[in-house]
């Protein structure tokens, strides 16, 4: 008589299904690179909050409530309320949307712009390269925040200007890195062959060079993302970024928070906490992404 050995745990999915494999891969990732996994978790949480804010947030981010001003964290308002009676947790959730939107938009625009310039510079070489390089070097002489501040001064305060102000300093930083990758790609024999056959510049650039710079491009993009979020928070904190009543994290830390710090310390604590977590998460995620995508660039830390 065959003795049926009971299975030690209920099998939910078949051993070979795709879902199972993904699960195993994720688990492996978490075990081998715990920090990267933590970063990824934070990034995902933030993206989730940003996308599903309308469902997640318990209250309206803009609604003032006279009876709820300065309430400490309680069961109804987990993180308390601010000087207008608005729920802090709700504003932080919607703030994720703003931070992510501005951060992504500006780093994407900046990185893409920089990548295009880097590729053009590397590909065309000669005088164009030299001049573009010089300009990039000059732009790099300005600390990121200072350049963003200067741009905001000139353009004025509005959402598109803010995104532009944060994007512009990203351009030279990306251009530099992409250029060196593009240069090495250019040396590739396929490129010469393609040119010999008569492919246009554009075709060559797209088919041969661009694929090779995707890795550094993505790496710079994620690396700059954390910085972009921090810059937006700093600008809003200084009163030069987003304006009330927008629920932006940096804005929540300026104005009300220091003034009401004794009465309502939670106003000063929570927004800063999420900014730090977000930047932390993106930096970690970026680090592991870099490790994964390009072992050559691995930077021991």
């Amino acid at each position, binding site marked *: 008589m065959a003795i049926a050995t009971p299975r030690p745990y209920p099998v939910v999915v078949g051993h070979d299904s795709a879902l199972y494999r993904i699960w195993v891969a994720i688990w492996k990732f978490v075990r081998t690179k715990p920090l990267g996994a933590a970063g990824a978790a934070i990034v995902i949480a933030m993206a989730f909050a940003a996308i599903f804010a309308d469902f997640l947030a318990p209250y309206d981010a803009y609604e003032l409530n006279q009876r709820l001003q300065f309430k400490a964290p309680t069961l109804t308002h987990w993180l308390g309320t601010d000087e207008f009676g608005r729920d802090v947790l709700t504003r932080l959730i919607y703030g994720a949307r703003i931070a992510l939107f501005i951060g992504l938009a500006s780093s994407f625009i900046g990185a893409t712009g920089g990548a295009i310039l880097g590729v053009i510079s590397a590909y065309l070489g000669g005088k164009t390269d030299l001049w573009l390089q010089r300009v990039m070097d*000059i732009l790099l002489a300005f600390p990121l925040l200072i350049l963003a501040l200067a741009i905001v001064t000139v353009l004025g305060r509005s959402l598109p200007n803010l995104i532009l102000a944060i994007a512009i300093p990203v351009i030279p930083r990306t251009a530099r890195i992409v250029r060196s990758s593009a240069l090495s790609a250019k040396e590739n024999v396929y490129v010469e062959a393609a040119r010999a056959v008569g492919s246009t510049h554009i075709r060559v650039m797209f088919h041969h060079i661009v694929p090779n710079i995707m890795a550094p491009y993505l790496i710079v993009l994620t690396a700059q993302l954390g910085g972009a979020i921090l810059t937006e928070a*700093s600008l809003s904190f*200084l009163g030069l970024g987003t304006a009330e009543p927008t629920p932006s994290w940096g804005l929540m830390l300026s104005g009300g928070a*220091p003034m009401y*710090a004794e009465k309502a310390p939670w106003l000063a604590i929570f927004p800063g906490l999420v*900014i*730090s977590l977000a930047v932390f998460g993106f930096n970690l995620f970026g680090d592991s992404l870099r490790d994964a995508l390009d072992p050559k660039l691995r930077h021991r830390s």
Partner: protein
Amino acid sequence: MWQYIVKRLLLMIPTLIGAALVIFLLMNIIPGDVALLIIGGDQGGDINPRELAKLRTQLGLDRPLYEQFLTWLWSVVRLDFGKSLWTGAPILEEIMIRLPLTLEIAIFATIISTIIAIPLGTLAAVRQDTWVDYVVRVISIGGLAIPAFWTGILIILFLVIYFEWGPPLEYASIFQDPWENFKQLVWPIVTVGYRNAAVAARMTRSTVLETMREDYIRTAWAKGLQERVVVVKHALKNAFLPVITIIGTEIAFLIGGLVVTETVFTLNGLGRFMVDAIAHRDIPVVQTLVLFIAFSFVFVNLIVDLLYAWFDPRISYR
């Protein structure tokens, strides 16, 4: 060696002029604004177009752009930065009032943070994977991710709630009253220096770890205390240069940190001056400050490069 120095200095000049050009173009994209701002002021009366035109000619705003740039460049070289639109005082004067404070915070923050970071990083490396290591690593990661202004706010929160702290009315110069000066500036220095300390500690830790990986080092380490001291000294020597380079790259963050920290602690320094100037659309001041910052940045990097070249004979002088 001298050839290298001279060459670098010469190379610096086109970068600086280029930076000045970029700043000038940036600030003057909007034509006529400066004159409009001067005339309009806070009164908000009707703007007399004749007066406006007269002022524009007076300021040289109706001359071609390149001429304006060269005039400005020439005056910059002579250290004449014009007058602030907001206060009406010469900009150089306004800068000199605030420079000592900012400089003091910057210098102390850099030096103290580096001095603290190196032993901490070394300790973390030597005691890798112990709780000491983890504590140091967590704190360093904090320095990278936590925005300087939040650190400042938290510190103030703590001081206000537990020590009934109040910001100083008048700034005490370090030469006149060092103890008062210390009391006033210790917290901004900590806030600004945190990031630098974090980065330097991480760098120290990784270079020491690298050094320790060598087999012969591990052997020496195993031999005992005497040898260990030698090993640590060797590791530190290796860490020295990278940490110096860190200072160069971190200057950018330091400057950003100064701006927000001075705002949080309401210190009358250049960082806050810049924020105020931007808030008042005081274009000449912003222009001058950005130029000043760019120059400092390039200059500090030059010093770092030279130090690097000095200490590392392997660098070729091109």
